[in-house]
């Protein structure tokens, strides 16, 4: 069974926000909300500075706290790619998943249910990349099956240095950032 994940090369990302716009267009994300976003992290004191630009989204964690706390099973692990998804007509809008997510990846859709990145599963089913990956002008994002030994994401993770977000939260996130 596949286990989808994403690898993002922070050395290539320029923070153009094309991924953000593509997601909003593809998924009809309501105005004022975003399922993915750009984070810029600057470390150090001038003139000794480093900067990392990251395109962030739901990490589709292997140990998802949002799924564990959901009282209705609306937040669930989808068999396809073991991705974390929300069934809108089972969600009661209790917001427990939003409080449980250490990444702030979820929000309340104006219609009342919890919403977030789906890894564009509707596109992936058709053999396409998620919208954000497909539009990236620097090709900094790679999407694929982490369990496939010859897959591109697995190979990038084996050959490059990477970090994931808040590993101390114990969620085992599946969006990786190459450094």
């Amino acid at each position, binding site marked *: 069974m596949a286990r989808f994940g994403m690898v993002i090369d922070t050395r290539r990302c320029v923070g153009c926000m094309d991924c953000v716009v593509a997601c909003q267009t593809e998924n009809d994300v309501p105005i004022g909300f975003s399922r993915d976003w750009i984070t810029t992290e600057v470390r150090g004191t001038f003139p000794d500075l480093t900067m990392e630009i990251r395109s962030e989204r739901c990490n589709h964690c292997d140990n998802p706290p949002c799924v564990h706390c959901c*009282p209705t099973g609306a937040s669930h692990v989808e068999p396809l790619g073991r991705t974390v998804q929300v069934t809108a007509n089972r969600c009661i809008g209790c917001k*427990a998943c939003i409080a449980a997510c250490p990444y702030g990846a979820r*929000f309340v859709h104006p219609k009342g249910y919890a919403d977030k990145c789906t890894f564009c599963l509707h596109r992936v089913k058709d053999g396409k990349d998620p919208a954000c990956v497909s539009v990236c002008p620097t090709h900094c994002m790679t999407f694929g099956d982490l369990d496939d030994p010859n897959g591109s994401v697995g190979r990038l993770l084996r050959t490059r240095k990477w970090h994931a977000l808040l590993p101390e939260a114990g969620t085992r996130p599946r969006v990786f950032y190459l450094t």
Partner: protein
Amino acid sequence: MLEITTTRHNPGIDPALHVWGWEIPLYLFVGGIVAGMMVLAGYAMLRTAKGEDTKSFFSVQTPLLGFMLLNVGMLALLLDLAHKLYVWAVYLTFEPLSPMSWGSWVLLIVYGVLLVSALIRLPDAWPWLAQRVPVLQNASDWLLARSKLIKALAWTNIVLGVLLGIYTGVLLNTMVARPLWNTSILAPLFLVSGLSAGAAAVHLAARVFPGRPAPKSLIGGALAAMVQHLGPEPPRAQAADSVVRADIGFLAVELLLIGLMVIALLSSTASHAAAASVILGGPYTAIFWIGVVTLGIVVPLALQALELTHRIPHTVVPAVLVLAGGFALRWVLVNAGQASQILQTAAG
């Protein structure tokens, strides 16, 4: 130095998480009171089963008052839901890892148990209804004649009360993403605070209309059934004293648990220590130490101790302070806890 900039600006999420307003603290507070009242009612019902104190306020009106209070809490809970029309989805499944799912099912059983418990003395407490619905009188007589059943009901009340009180704390502490809640002391703290608030609510209700005959009318009778002591005599001083004595114990344990919670947070990771700083110099310092600890615990503890030793007359002041403090505790923890987060490491 570490400077993080994000383009994300989702309402309720950024700049700090705030998805739960007044509804959740109110629900946690009322749920705590009901939990405490169930434990107290269970204890009083055990005495009823033994044939002692059969007309005690605490076994009679407590379940009914608890039932009505629970409705207030459930209304608050419903108001909090963003997708209200789908609330039924909670009862289509049981999710063993979700404290909220446990709580939803416990609440359903609590409703039933409170109703049956209220039935035992409903005809005495609300004569208007019993005269018009004779089956209530029959059901009450049937239950009262079976002391084993009342004993079982009493223990059910105690166990469910403890479960209800604990789950509200577990609900928050399972969230790894919120360091302030991330202490297992939260569950016993909420339970003990609920017990103390339950005792205060019962005490307050027993003192509001002491010892007037129950009104015969529909609405007056219904209200009296919830808060009024049965019969022409006020609650016996000894019964009121026992509630006050119990509350002193609960408040003392609560104080100890708050101390342990602060120490536990400070001695944990940097994120937990930073989370504790909101009540140690941060924005919630004044409301926590003055509202929750001083006015909500220490002052009522002292007043009740003085009342018991007959140095000052009995008043409702400690009960009111305990209730206000119980709400303030949950308000501070829910609001400050949401905004707490795991810190990122920065060199230098």
